[in-house]
Structures are given as structure tokens and as C-alpha cells.
């Protein structure tokens, strides 16, 4: 047999995150330009300080609806006409609001950028929110909520969120609103939300791709300098108050062949000081394919197709969640293994091999994350939304490499709190309730999907 000894890699070639430059228009609109000349494509992302956490109580979902409706009528163009104009340019346009920001994202061939961006200008600044389109968007959101009742994955996510946060916290409710709040939204609500949040002072334009800094700044100035509106109002609120007390909940789906499992609690906000330690800790626990939880549940026990854990990073304290879908009969066993893994990573420092696997992965994969113009724009958007320093991406890899096993242990002890873990299972109560009670030693609360999702 030929020599099958393992190859040794040479030194890595140097990589730098694309260089970018900042600029501020006279009306306060911020511009970031990252020229990347690989292919004749440009992505422009417009960030607006309007999000689920800037909504007023009773209007939950208005940020998402407003973003979505930007594409449904603007200036003298109807939604159908707007779609046709963008698409004849081959432009990919999307508008979404999440917990922290509204992002309008355009990807287009360089030669058609000016024309496409002029359309974007109109929809950001002069949306018309036609009543018919608003009603249709509301219907579609309600249809989505209805679908969720039969969709174990999203149902589990939704019921888990509800178990983690206090019922009056914004994070406890769906990002895009619940049936009652969506029904209550009117044309006036949307218009008022747009008027009070879409403003130059809270807006950032990010250009990534085949465009020079000069051209990007000039385009931005042409389209957005003559925009004035009152400064954005950001209501002060605490979106992330956690529920007190443990919940072990089964959302009933009779005869389910599999249980959708969520285990977790409130995690830290994105700006937490030991972000890198927490990230490496999570990679070892459940972030990587080779992580402890996936290896245990999938490769040792064959309970599941996959199991993972994640911090959902937000400005506020987003959830930490472990998720899996396991064969119904082993639901109790799977939860026991998950709880053991949480205890284990808090008890003893991880080994050198585990640490180096996680850090060398996060270090090495860095350039692979920024192959596309939209990925680069999204990275710059993160920087803007979470207030990361300008050298954040240049120092990212050194920070990752600097994480120690002791730092990881500290992060595990700080950010994982077994006594607060909430457990939600969408599955067959006849099969899973009793094992869950045995494993957790806590009473099991059995609910129905429609009781959980529909307002009383």
C-alpha cells in the first residue's frame, strides 16, 4: 500500500477583511463603503433604526409589516410596478425588520446599480402603504401564524421564547407580532411608525462590491442628502425581562414520531465583555458538528439527526438555546444527556484538543465567511448595529486565538445556569410526559398548540 501518512499544511496565506471607509452626509446619514472587485456585483444594505424593540406595546409586528410594505407601493409606483421595475433590472431586493434593526438589502449587477438604488431611495423615503396591500400583508402574517400551529419546529421555537421571557417583555412575543397585535395594526399605525423611526440620523448605507468609495459616497449623497425628517424616537424599554420559575412544558402533538426539543434560558446581550469566550464555549458545547451535544445525541446514541446550541445575539439579552429533534421514545433520555452536558462544561475545564478544535475552526473559517458581497455587507451591518469597533474584524482572529480553557470555564459558569433552564417539547404527551418528569424532577405542564398560540 502507498504511503497514506497525513499531509502537513504549509503556512496560511494572509487574509484581511475587506477595507472599508466611512463617510457622513450633511443630514446625518452614515455611509460605509467596502470596494471588492471580484465580480461585477454590488450589494447595498440600508439600515434603519426601526425594529421590533422600538415598537409600542399593542403594535407588535408593526416594524416587520412596515419593512415588508416598503416594497408594496412607493412614490407613484404600485407594489406590482415596483416588483416589475426591480426584477427587470435583475435586482434582488429584500426588506426585513428584526429585533434590532430594519435592513433593506439590494444586490444587483454593477451596471444597473444607479437605477436600482433610485428605486430603493423612493421606497425608503416615500412609501405609500396602500390599504389593500396592508390588509394582504396582515392576512399573510396571520396565515403564517396559523401554519405554525402544525409546524413542530417553529411551534417549539415560539413556545420556548414564551417560556424564557416574562409575558410583558417584548422578547416574549413573536418578532413579527401575534394574532391580536397584527389584527390591530392600521394604515395610520404603519404611517406613524415610519414617520417616527425612518430618519437620516438613524440610517446607515453600506456598499459592498464592485464600486469605488468615491462612487459609493457620491451615489449616497445624490440619493439621500436632501432627506430631512425629525430625529428618530427610540422608546426606552427593557425587552428582555426573564420569567422566574422553572417550566417543563409539553406542547401536545398526538402520535408525533419525533419530539422537537428546546432547552435554554435568557443569555447575554451581544455587547457582553466575554463574547469570544462565550462563543468558543458554545462551539465546544453545541456549536460545531463535532461538539459535545451533537456527538453525544447523534453519533453515540443515534437519538437524532442533529443537536446544537446557540446564543441568539441581540442588543438585549437574547436567548441561549439547545435544540434537537429526537425520536419520541428517547425524549427523556435525550434531555437527560443535554442537562448532563450543560453541567459537565461548567464543572471541569475543557481539554486542550477541544479548545484548539474550536479556536482553530473559528480562526480558519473567517475568510470563508466573507466570499460574497451580501456576507460582507452583513458583517458591516453587525458592526453598525452592535457598535463594534472599526478594527473588530481585523482583530477577530487574534481574539479567538487568545481564548483559554479557563476563560471558557468562566464563560460557562457565567452564562449557563442549570437552575434556570426552561424545557419545551413539542411531542406526544402520552410518550414523553412521564419520562420528562422523571428526568427533571419537575411537574410537566401539558398545553395544546392552539391554546398556546391563539390569544384568549
Amino acid at each position, binding site marked *: 500500500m502507498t504511503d497514506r501518512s497525513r499531509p502537513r499544511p504549509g503556512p496560511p496565506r494572509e487574509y484581511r477583511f475587506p477595507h472599508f471607509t466611512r463617510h457622513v452626509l450633511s443630514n446625518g446619514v452614515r455611509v460605509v463603503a467596502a470596494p471588492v472587485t471580484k465580480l461585477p456585483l454590488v450589494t447595498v444594505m440600508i439600515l434603519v433604526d426601526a425594529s421590533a424593540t422600538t415598537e409600542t406595546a399593542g403594535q407588535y409586528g408593526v416594524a416587520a409589516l412596515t419593512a415588508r410594505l416598503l416594497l408594496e407601493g412607493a412614490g407613484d409606483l404600485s407594489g406590482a410596478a415596483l416588483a416589475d421595475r426591480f426584477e427587470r433590472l435583475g435586482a434582488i431586493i429584500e426588506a426585513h425588520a428584526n429585533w434590532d434593526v430594519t435592513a433593506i438589502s439590494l444586490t444587483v*449587477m454593477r451596471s444597473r446599480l444607479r437605477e436600482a438604488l433610485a428605486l430603493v431611495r423612493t421606497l425608503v423615503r416615500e412609501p405609500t402603504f396602500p390599504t389593500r396591500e396592508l390588509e394582504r400583508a396582515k392576512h399573510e402574517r396571520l396565515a403564517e401564524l396559523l401554519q405554525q400551529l402544525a409546524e413542530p419546529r417553529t411551534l417549539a421555537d415560539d413556545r420556548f421564547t414564551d417560556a424564557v421571557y416574562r409575558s410583558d417583555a417584548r422578547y416574549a412575543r413573536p418578532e413579527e407580532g401575534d394574532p391580536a397585535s397584527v389584527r390591530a395594526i392600521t394604515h395610520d399605525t404603519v404611517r406613524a411608525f415610519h414617520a417616527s423611526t425612518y430618519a437620516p440620523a438613524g440610517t446607515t448605507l453600506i456598499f459592498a462590491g464592485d464600486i469605488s468609495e468615491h462612487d459609493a459616497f457620491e451615489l449616497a449623497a445624490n440619493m439621500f442628502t436632501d432627506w430631512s425628517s425629525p430625529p428618530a424616537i427610540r422608546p426606552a424599554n427593557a425587552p428582555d425581562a426573564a420569567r422566574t420559575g422553572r417550566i417543563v412544558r409539553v406542547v401536545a402533538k398526538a402520535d408525533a414520531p419525533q419530539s422537537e426539543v428546546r432547552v435554554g434560558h435568557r443569555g447575554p446581550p451581544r455587547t457582553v465583555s466575554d463574547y469570544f469566550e462565550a462563543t468558543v464555549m458554545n462551539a465546544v458545547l453545541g456549536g460545531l458538528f463535532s461538539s459535545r451535544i451533537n456527538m453525544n445525541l447523534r453519533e453515540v446514541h443515534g437519538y437524532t*439527526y442533529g443537536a446544537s446550541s446557540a446564543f441568539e445575539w441581540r442588543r438585549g439579552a437574547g436567548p441561549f438555546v439547545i435544540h434537537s429533534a429526537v425520536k419520541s421514545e428517547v425524549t427523556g433520555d435525550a434531555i437527560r444527556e443535554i442537562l448532563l452536558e450543560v453541567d459537565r462544561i461548567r464543572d471541569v475545564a475543557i481539554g486542550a484538543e477541544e479548545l484548539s478544535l474550536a479556536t482553530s475552526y473559528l480562526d480558519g473559517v473567517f475568510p470563508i465567511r466573507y466570499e460574497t458581497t451580501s456576507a460582507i455587507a452583513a458583517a458591516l451591518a453587525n458592526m453598525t448595529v452592535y457598535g463594534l469597533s472599526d478594527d473588530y474584524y481585523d482583530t477577530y482572529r487574534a481574539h479567538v486565538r487568545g481564548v483559554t480553557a479557563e476563560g471558557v470555564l468562566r464563560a460557562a459558569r457565567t452564562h449557563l445556569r442549570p437552575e434556570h433552564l426552561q424545557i419545551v417539547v413539542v411531542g406526544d404527551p402520552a410518550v414523553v410526559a412521564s419520562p420528562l418528569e422523571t428526568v427533571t424532577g419537575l411537574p410537566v405542564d401539558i398545553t395544546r398548540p392552539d391554546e398556546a398560540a391563539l390569544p384568549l
Partner: protein
Amino acid sequence: MHIPIETFRLGNGLTVVLSEDHTAPIVAVNLWYHVGSANERPGRTGFAHLFEHMLFQGSANVGSNEHFELIQRAGGTLNGSTWLDRTNYYETVPSNQLETALWLEADRMGYLLPAMTQQKLDTQRDVVQNERRWSMDNQPYGTWWERLPALCFPPGHPFHHSLIGSMADLDAASLDDIAQFFSTYYTPDNAVLSIAGDFDAATARQMVDRHFGPIQRGAARPSLPDMSVSPTFGGPRREVVADDVMLPRLFVASRSPVFGSDDYYAASVCGAILGLKKGSRLFRTLVREHEVAAEVSSFTYDLTKGSDLLVIDVMARPETSPENLETQVHQQLDLVVSEGVTENEVERAIALIETDLVVTLQSAGDRADRLSLFATYFARPELINVQTEKYRQVSVADVNAFIDERLIPSNRASLLYVPRSAAAIRSSDELVLEGAR
């Protein structure tokens, strides 16, 4: 758009495609084996995919799950996927780690069997059965994956049966099956290796020679049975499925020209006209104007043998009955047949497709995968560079010719999902907005 391509073949029959791009220190390795669920024998549905899982369970010089660990330790991403007529395995790694990826792929192509054990097979069988539950059995509408091909290809046709496989067939898979499948299909002369990104061609060639060169060519493979089917169904087909779903959903599939044929491009453009994004015909009419649907999309399977399928996928709004959904979708398709499409619609579709082709080429992994695709199916990886041109040549007349021949009622297979439970009907009443139709 033109990407550089260099192709050569090793003595053992392995086709190798190289495409350099030094913009970032990243390289993608991509292997296609020309085998998929179509090659499975009766009683072994799902085996090609189960086998894909076993390829991550180690080989002569690689421990169980070590493939994943070594690539992730190298700072790379990886996976594999199984399709009706091919299986692929791929890694994207920092460019200095190219040889590690090649060594790993060569080890499992050449020396897999010593690492196979009954315990590993039993565990992966459990994992795959859980994958089936997750993606299909416990997922609303999930069974469309196996129902639609079964509806469109006759029993016994290699595309008729389930790709993920039945629980019973998965239970029946043995280590003997693994050995036989491996020696039959996982041979260098049945594979294409593509490398795209930051590497030096001469060095890469030496690495490929070193690691793949010693692997033995395979014996003759059993050929697939005759895959040909008539160009149309010859009459409408229909299946109604009562499922644990809240909203009706309709798939309409038409037999269409195989991927790679000249006529394929008109079919693909027609699909984009009907269901790609908000400016599409069906979005405009069913979602925006008639307000009977919540979502619309379309896609082609991109099959290269027998027949391709063009599929329309429409999700109803809560107040739309299954019957109404079906009627309205077919009415729109009938209108397209009677009126044809416009210049404007064709231009819109081609503009979107062109952008998508360029967007896809940004990533080394996608480039390598497309090169493997064209090399596997047509022995012409350079076809990657003429796709835009092929689409630009599609005219209104081409699309209308496709429509006249293939979008007609006698070439439509309808797969309609309807909510099973009375609870769904009750909840749906509550969720309908006041004043709605």
C-alpha cells in the same frame, strides 16, 4: 463572465477539474459520484443516502467522525448530499489546507471498507431514520418529497421511489450492501473531482496524483434501466393528501426537457415567469390580485435522464378552500397556455436568472459544485461559462413553444394537500380577519 478551467484525467479514470481564483486564500474541493437513489435495487430504497452518511464514519487511516473534525480543525466547512442520480461531498478550506481535504477524500474513495462496522451502520441507520422523521414524517407537507416523483414517474422507473427510503428498507441495509455498493459505484472512474479557488495548478495536480493515483479503477457498473418516458403524462394526474396541515397547498408538476438540452432553458425561463419572485405571473395574479394564495414558487428538478420536472408550488390563504386553490391555479396555467407569455415577462425572468448565476459564482464551493455537475453529466465543465449565453438566447417563441407542448392540462400532475383535522378548520375560522372574503 468567464472562469478559467483546466481538465485532465488520471490513469484510473478520475476526472479532475481545476479553476484558479486567487482573490481570497480559500479553496474548495468537490467530489461528485455518479450514483444516487436511481441506482438502488428493489428493497433498498434510501440506501444511497444512508451510504453517504457512512462516508463520514472513517476509512483506513481516518477515525470515525474524524473527517468532520479534521476539516473543522483546519478552519473548513464541509458536507455531502444525495440526489436522484448523483451524490456529492465537499469541503471549503483555507488554501494551505488543500492537501488535507484531498487526502481525506482519497482515503474514503480508496480505503473505506476496513473502517466499516455493524455498530456504525446501526447508529447511522438511527440517525437517518431520525432525518426522515424530521424532514418528512413530522413536518407538514414533508411527504411531498416522495409523493411528487412517485406521481410523475411510473412504478419501477428509477426516479419513482423514495430518496430518503422507507423505514423497512433502511432496516434491511447490511454491511454486505455497503461493501457491494462501494466497490460498484465509489470508484475513480465514476467520479469527478473539482478544485476551485486559491491554489497552484501544478502543485494541486501533484497532490491529486499522489493521493488519488493509486486507487484502483472499478469494474463495469450495471447500467441504469431505460429511463425514457413520454414527453407528457398523456392525461392529467391528481393525488389528494389529507395531512396534519393548516392550509391547503398545491404542487403542479409537468414533465419538461432534461437539464442540459437546448429546450431546457425555455422551460427554466417559463418556470421563472410563473413563480420566481413577486413580479412573477402567479404571484401577481394569485397572491396580489385574487388574494387566494399566500406564497408562490416554482423550480425545476434539473434531471438529466428520462425527463425533467417543472414544478409550481402554491400555498393557500386560510380562507381559500382546497377546491378553489386548485381551480384558480389551473385557470392561471390555462390562461398562460391560451395567451402565451410577453416579451416583458421573458426579459424579467432572464435578468433575474443572470444575476443569480453571477451571485452563485462568488463562492468557491458553488463554483466547484457547478464544475462537477457539468463534468459529471456532460463531460464538459466549460459549460459553466456559457449558461448566461444560453439563457439570453431564449425567446418569447421558445417559451411559448414549451408552453404549447408541456404546460397543457394533459401534462399536469397535481399533488394537493388538504387539512385533515376539524381543529384546523375551527382555528382557521378564528384567524380569518373580520370582513374578509
